[in-house]
């Protein structure tokens, strides 16, 4: 690297270069005044350069999110320092923390209220897949069971550096989108996510038929049959599951093996 001070016109040219249209050239004299680019690139550039996150924290990860936005790590370098408390004004929802069943309806409503284009980041192990609390009776195994997620960030909690890396990945993803294929530019728009309801347990309206078929079938719901050690020392877990559940698990294992092989 040279230590000479940068030549600003050159620097500017270098920055815009990636946005220029590859096949349309501008006449010599207009080079510094007119740029020809595509609508996609212009849209994506503006969208990712000022992506406003929703001011929305769930748990421990929210503290690291605040730390990322504060003095030391400084999210404003990414044009993201304006965290909006209103979903109507924000583009990005960072699901930062454990998603509980009691909270899911609120999260889905907030997601539906966000104006498109909207993005979701699952920050941390809990929002990604339930994390250390996955087995808990009030914990949802990942927010992607209910709303679509764009970027997953591992960690418990992810460090601010990890969060920033995730945000950069988010930017990269935005850069690859096109107005001709993105859902929100289609005539019918993208669909709302139906809000889950709190019944005897949380249920997703999209799965109502499946749930009814199982509960009304007259058989005990299979997952309940896993026994503990109380039953004469017989180990619980897989061995005590019903036939249907065993078949489901076998199929899932086959799918996983096929993915690994191919």
């Amino acid at each position, binding site marked *: 690297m040279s230590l000479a001070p940068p030549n600003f016109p050159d620097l500017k040219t270098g920055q815009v270069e990636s946005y220029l249209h590859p096949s349309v050239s501008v006449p010599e004299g207009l080079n510094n005044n007119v740029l020809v680019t595509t609508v996609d690139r212009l849209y994506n550039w503006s969208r990712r350069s000022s992506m406003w996150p929703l001011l929305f924290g769930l748990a421990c990860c929210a503290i690291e999110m605040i*730390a990322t936005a504060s003095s030391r790590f400084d999210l404003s370098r990414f044009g993201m320092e304006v965290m909006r408390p209103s979903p109507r004004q924000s583009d990005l929802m960072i699901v930062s923390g*454990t998603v509980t069943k009691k909270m899911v309806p609120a999260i889905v409503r907030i997601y539906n209220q966000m104006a498109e284009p909207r993005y979701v980041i699952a920050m941390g192990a809990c929002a990604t897949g339930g994390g250390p609390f996955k087995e808990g009776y009030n914990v949802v195994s990942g927010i992607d069971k209910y709303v679509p997620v764009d970027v997953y960030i591992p960690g418990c909690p992810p460090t601010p550096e990890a969060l920033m890396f995730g945000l950069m990945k988010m930017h990269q993803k935005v850069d690859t989108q096109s107005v001709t294929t993105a859902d929100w530019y289609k005539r019918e728009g993208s669909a709302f996510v139906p809000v889950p309801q709190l019944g005897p347990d949380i249920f997703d309206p999209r799965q109502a038929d499946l749930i009814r078929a199982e509960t009304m079938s007259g058989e005990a719901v*299979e997952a309940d049959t896993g026994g503990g050690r109380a039953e004469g020392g017989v180990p619980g877990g897989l061995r005590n599951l019903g036939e249907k559940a065993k078949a489901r698990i076998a199929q899932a294992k086959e799918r996983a093996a096929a993915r690994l092989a191919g």
Partner: protein
Amino acid sequence: MSDIVAPTATVAGPLDVAGTLALVQEALPDAKPVSAGPTDYLEVAPDQLLEALRVLRDQGGCDLLSSITCTDYLSYQGRARAKDGPRFEVVYHLYSTAQGGDCVVLHVPVDDGEPLPTATPVYPGANLQEREVWDLYGLVFEGHPNLRRILLWEGFEGHPMRKDWHEAYYEEDQKPFRSRHPRADFARSEDKVPWGKNTRYPADWDPDDWQEPVTYVPVSQDPRHSNGTGDRLSTESVVVNLGPHHPSTHGVFRMVVRIEGETVTALEPDMGYLHRNHEKIGERNTWLMNMPFTDRLDYINSMSNNWGYALAVEKLMGLEVPERAEYLRVIMAELSRIVNHLWSIGFILNDLGALQTPALYAIEEREMILDLFESVSGARMMCNYLRFGGVHRDLPAGWAERARYVVHERLPRALDQLDDLLSGNEIVNTRGRGVGYLSAEQLISLSVTGPMIRAAGVPYDIRRCEPYGVYDRFDFDIPTLPHSDVYDRYYIRLLEARESVRIVQQALAGLPEGDILAGKGGYVFRPPEGEAYGRVEGPKGELGFYLVSDGKPNPYRYHIRAPSYINLNALAPMTVGYKVADAIVILGAIDIVLGEVDR
């Protein structure tokens, strides 16, 4: 700068626990003394409970009902208990704020479906905890003013902390699960359930017929509220929802507020939006596996949480901790108290409308301390640093010098700067002084602990009243302030952070050489049968862990007495009569963390 700082008062002397229990026995000859491991308690019949509590409060001087919880003895495997006794035992821990010292413990055995009287007439602070026991264990407290579910929602099927209640992903009662070790033949939990989610539904339940229960709306709690029946103007009150997604509620917390004009006439806290089933998971984990889970309780100070749990287990085991480890624990816990108080000062100011700027200054200092934590434990926030009988790692080279720089050079200046900029500020004074007042007696009867009651003039600090670790070796004050309003609650945190800086300075100067861990740190570990209650002065109040061991490798009962949860008892009485904008800052000055409130 605040004008009045009350002199540090000292406590009268430790409570005579045996004598106090004898008082109850004198009044109630049927009460049966029991000894379980390190704890002696009295077994009281449900119909005599109120009498026992009255004796303890009026004659025994136990003014603080610290904790109420319940144990389900359905699958208890130890030998110390008769198998045919009542299934549940409700446990009461009581303290004296005037005398300090150890706790008085009562057990009330009840069978399934047998009601027991509510303790709220004697100790109003029993309110939230009894609701929790109803929610998680299904025990009915007769006469409770508002016995609804608190952590889960109305309509939830079953009471999940019962030992025979199993969730959809249930595998076994004890970890490590045999499907993981040694069989290693495990599958994704999602694949076991037809709908791929952690849910279960009762048989014959049709989702189409489901109707959500009517939302509970609080009625006016203001005695002055006329409802248009007198000669005052007839007005209509409005119910406003603050949360669970609200920038001022410090997490996912919901307040249902009934307002008239801008005046709050009733407030109902609604929680459970971060109920992560810590206790249910904790009873399946081995003893040491719970240590990283305690980090995630009050996620701003993992170090103090670790200490509360380690202390309870050490009490159960009778473990001694090496001197160097005790000093390291003090250093870490006090640094984390400074982190907490800086954070809370920043966010009280946020709630007052000084959006971001004071918080940014506070977070800058926090980062200095987090760097210290990271280099000693490997993680910024979830330190998982303490072990039973010591600490996990020794200090890396140069750590003590960096810490000395932070506590001698950096933090005193930062605290002075915050004090200079904020304490005399016009807005902090006008919005803080006289707002959210409750008298010291009311706060104690509502089971409030920590900076909240020290800002009401009560010098109750567990580091002084029932010293643990090596706190008796350091020279520090317990600051108190007289007014019990939002301003004092803000300022007490600044004063306490200064005392913590003093403690860390002394601990760093006197840090001895030697071992950091007695024994093996609990990797393979079975405490003897019994129960123990260990508590530390957490930055938010009394953080207690109630543990029952049946001699097996995992805790039989694992309960956390969370200070921010129990301090919320005082939220409604403090807020009613003030404006909506004050409700925000009154909540901010309680300083709650939802990981601890909901667990």
